[in-house]
């Protein structure tokens, strides 16, 4: 459990270092995700771990545990809204409308392009 957590922290730290060193516009944790996925890919090529058994490893259980409570991790940032009521000000309603319409349109466009290209390839 502690080792698995250390793996996640080391990947995040390595992601931060790589991102800063190469001045990439990608945050450290996302680069850390790529690094860990690449590491797991390499490990499976050597036969050390298979996709089927990853979930029963300590790393797999720690990852599942974290992802099961992913929602709560956004609470502190979400509560930050109380500081920004003033900023929303006179454009609050227009912005809300823009977000609702844009999110709906984006969901529909994305899902249909995904399905359309899937079917076209089949």
């Amino acid at each position, binding site marked *: 459990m502690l080792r698995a957590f250390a793996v996640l922290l080391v990947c995040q730290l390595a992601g931060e270092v790589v991102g800063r060193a190469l001045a990439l516009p990608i945050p450290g*944790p996302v680069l850390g995700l790529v690094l860990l996925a690449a590491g797991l890919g390499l490990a499976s090529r050597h036969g050390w771990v298979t996709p089927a058994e990853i979930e029963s490893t300590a790393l797999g259980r720690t990852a599942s545990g974290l992802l099961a409570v992913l929602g*709560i991790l956004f*609470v502190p940032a979400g509560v930050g809204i109380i500081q920004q009521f003033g900023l929303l000000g006179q454009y609050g309603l227009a912005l809300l409308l823009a977000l609702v319409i*844009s*999110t709906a349109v984006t969901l529909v466009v994305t899902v249909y392009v995904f399905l359309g290209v899937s079917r076209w390839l089949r």
Partner: protein
Amino acid sequence: MTAPFALWTYLAATPLLWLTVTVLAWIAADALAQASGRHPLVNPLLLTVAGVAALLLATGTPYGTYFAGAQFVHFLLGPATVAIAVPLFRNWPLVVRHALPMLAALLAGGLTAIASALAVAASLGVPHDVLVALAPKSVTAGIAMGISEGLGGAPALTAVLVIATGLIGAVMVTPLMNALGIRDYAARGFAVGLASHGIGTARAFTVDPVAGTFAGIAMGLNALLSAVLVPLIVRWVL
């Protein structure tokens, strides 16, 4: 009367109180969500943010004091993002099989997310500097704030718009996809991760692990694409 007040003054300033409040509020909200059969409107994040924000406003607690406790939860966002590598690895063959649909959906969806928000807001008379802060609203908060700041937008405003977009997508995705009759969880997850970043991804993981995996990939890819697209659109179109 002074003793309980002194106790409150002491506790209200400690990280322990606000960390405990955050965790308990989430457990209560998540229990409500579970009791509702994970109804999309009973979103645990929405309930928790509303409850905690109301409590802070009612007690006159500054956000900085709250964050001193809540930062321990906030910190875990980084390791949790890295942890998405595990379901990614687990579902790798499925991901490879969907590489082309994902790429096409990324380009179409990423462009739509930026352009549609700007079009609606601009037509409603929202001024230029607010539009700049709005443009990266589908991107995960850390990068969205960086993009906005680089273009002269207000990062704090971007953060609020990003979180609102996450909540709107998380609440909207299940009824919308059901109404459209779409049962492909890879496609559904990819759409919500692209439109609503980590908050959409959190919702996707509560619905289906494959949806969660594709949401996580879409979140990462759209962050990359938008870091390039938003500055181009803002400079050329706005």
